[in-house]
């Protein structure tokens, strides 16, 4: 079969891959923010979650750029692989999140639907990132290390610690999905629009 680019090796244009990836990352982050805000409003008042030992994310060991200058200096290959690592680090926690939210008695239905949607769309985005990286830097990034999730840090039977562990997970998801969304938008400007968006 003849492909649009004339050859026989049909490929979705890289610009289209990035367009779809950015739409997905934006959507995942807005859902994650909504979930966190809804849970924060419902469960945090009076529980002083943050006064506890503070927030800790399983992905904090990944050396991600924290401001514009750092993001500007990092090579795009490294930034692409970072996005892939962060995404992979969320496979297991998202599966846990979907099952956990069903056991939280007063969790609003909207959080469950959004958790399922985030899990599904994150898988799609991960597939897309693997395509994009395969396109931009052919080479095996299959067995790249990522940040394994240690599992829920809650004391069995202690409802408050369980809610705090869930709060912590939602907070980290909101933060990491914002990072992914930011980095992808940067990469799209750099690689598709030659740095002039």
């Amino acid at each position: 079969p003849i492909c649009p680019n004339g050859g026989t090796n049909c490929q979705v244009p890289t610009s289209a891959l990035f367009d779809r990836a950015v739409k997905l990352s934006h959507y995942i982050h807005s859902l994650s923010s909504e979930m966190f805000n809804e849970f924060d409003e419902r469960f945090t008042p009076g529980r002083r979650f943050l006064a506890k030992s503070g927030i800790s994310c399983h992905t904090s060991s990944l050396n991600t750029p924290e401001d514009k200058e750092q993001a500007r200096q990092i090579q795009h290959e490294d930034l692409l692989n970072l996005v892939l690592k962060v995404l992979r680090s969320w496979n297991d926690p998202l599966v846990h999140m979907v099952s956990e939210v069903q056991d939280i008695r007063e969790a609003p239905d909207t959080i469950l639907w959004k958790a399922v949607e985030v899990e599904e769309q994150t898988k799609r985005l991960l597939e897309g990132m693997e395509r994009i990286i395969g396109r931009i830097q052919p080479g095996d990034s299959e067995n790249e290390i990522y940040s394994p999730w240690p599992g829920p840090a809650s004391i069995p039977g202690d409802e408050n610690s369980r809610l705090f562990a869930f709060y912590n997970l939602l907070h980290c998801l909101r933060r990491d999905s914002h990072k992914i969304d930011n980095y992808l938008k940067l990469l799209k400007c750099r690689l598709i629009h030659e740095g002039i968006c």
Partner: protein
Amino acid sequence: PPGQPEVIGCRSYDKETVTCWWKSGSDGGLPTNYTVLYWTERTKTEQECPDYHSSGPYTCFFDKAHSSLWMYYFVYVKATNALGSNVSDIYRFEIGDIVQTYPPRNLTLFHESEKSSLPYLLVTWVPPKKADVKMGWITLQYEVRLKEEKKHVWEEHLVDHQTKLKVFSLTPGEDYVVQVRCKADSKHWSEWSEESYIKIPGGPRKRDMK
């Protein structure tokens, strides 16, 4: 052997799932078996159509789990009977190329003459079903067409992303028919919506009619 079958086309209504249509060639009166097969840009190995039924006869439906945003699909049909087999040409697509939504819905017409210095026809509609517009997944462009019922020439108006349109200077006393359609990611127009009708008030009183 059987005549050559054909993949007629593939379409995505929502940029998430895909339906392909196919037709058989001549089967010479022999019982002939048809198989829809596909591979993708990544998985070179051939697989069989996951669902022959959801979209009706002579179709193949790829649900979310079987459709990908990120790669090309290559689909063909194989016809086999006692005398041998025959294959269709390969139909190639990526989901971005085949998005064609359902038409817009709830087309409503309202003639406004009080609140405005100039009377106008207010046409409103809502995006088609299954087109996830709120997430920005699909960006839609709309086109409205209208004509006097008794005439043949349509007046067509492109209105970008708006879901309403005011049309000024229509002929008082005439009956109008209106339709709207939409285009997803500037690829394919949907079918036209159902027709809506309205009579524009005013116009020559009966007694004045010659």
